[in-house]
């Protein structure tokens, strides 16, 4: 119970300040876990970032890795729940307010006004990934074929991702 409580308290504190938030979390976690608490070495921390990046979840699953280091599976779960709890609570509140406010004209206008900008940000995310994913002509080809399969032939993304995983595993691409 001792170490679990410490893990939960530490990550809850971080979760309250950063609401589980994105890449800003990385330097904050480094400060706490490596510099202050010595739960991870710098090397372990970097490898933890790499492992977190391998998963579909947000970078915040770095907490799972650190929690595992301190108190095994229980620590991993405690760290994850504690880090996400404040952000999840806040997003539930926002979703609730949305349900209440969505018939309000001004709230609706505000949200509709930013919709095109959100669309732009989605394209931006794809472009920012470009240099890493499209470094070779094979990557470019795979990306083009995937786009056609997804939009024109309406393949399920899981199958298209499966093709990508297979080419990566076999070393064909990128």
């Amino acid at each position, binding site marked *: 119970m001792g170490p679990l409580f410490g893990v939960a308290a530490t990550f809850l504190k971080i979760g309250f300040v950063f609401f589980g938030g994105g890449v800003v979390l990385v330097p904050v976690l480094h400060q706490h876990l490596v510099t202050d608490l010595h739960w991870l070495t710098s090397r372990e921390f970097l490898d933890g970032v790499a492992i977190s990046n391998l998963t579909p979840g947000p970078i915040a699953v770095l907490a799972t890795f650190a929690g595992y280091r301190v108190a095994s599976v229980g620590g991993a779960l405690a760290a994850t729940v504690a880090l996400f709890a404040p952000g999840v609570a806040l997003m539930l509140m926002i979703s609730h307010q949305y349900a209440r406010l969505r018939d309000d004209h001004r709230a609706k206008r505000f949200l509709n006004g930013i919709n095109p*900008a959100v669309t732009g940000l989605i394209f931006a995310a794809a472009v920012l*990934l470009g240099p890493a994913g499209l470094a070779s002509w094979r*990557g470019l080809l795979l990306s083009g074929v995937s786009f056609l399969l997804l939009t024109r032939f309406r393949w399920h993304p899981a199958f298209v991702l499966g093709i990508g995983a297979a080419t990566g595993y076999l070393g064909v691409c990128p």
Partner: protein
Amino acid sequence: MAAGERRSWVPGSEGEASAGLVHEPEVAGSISLGRLLVAFLKIGSIGFGGGMAVIALMEQEFARKRRLISEDEFVHGVALGQILGPFAANAAIFIGYRLFGLLGGLLCVIAFLAPSVVLVIALSYLYFEYHSIPALQGIVAGLGPVVIALIFSAGWSIARNVVRTPAALVVAAVAAAAGIARLNSIWVLLAARAAGLLLGRGDDAAASTPVRPHPRLSLLSRR
């Protein structure tokens, strides 16, 4: 909440008519909480690339395929989620809450995160036991180009529904440029709103008002 209960987001079902706007009946699907959770488990398992890749999967699954939530509302959820950081998890909460309330929001985010947490625990075990990261890296490298295509296709699909006026197209393009320049997305969204107000005399030049799609965009619209 009964396990077999099915929910759908039908415009008009929650006093929408009082808002005085008539939406196209673009939301038609319904789903049980159990199937919704399975869908999130699936997305949480295949959504490699995180963030926008996951948003793209959710858009395809819940807005395009199952029609549980309109594209407009989906984008609202993404926008609200971006304010808080890990927007993919927040979009899961938003969708769960819209369809099944508090419990739905909570269970959907758990279902979405569970596969990643299990994967990280497994990889942590391997890492601390053998001090090496398995050959998963090759697989992830191969996923990169597909993830880019996936995000583009989601952006394309959302744009067809959301970017309906030339002004909206300008806002979307500027926001994309700002995003590529790595400006903070919250400021981009607020600036977009301010620009919309300035350009549109307080009305919505940049807004996606519920009218027909822009003709040029509708040419490219779904068959």
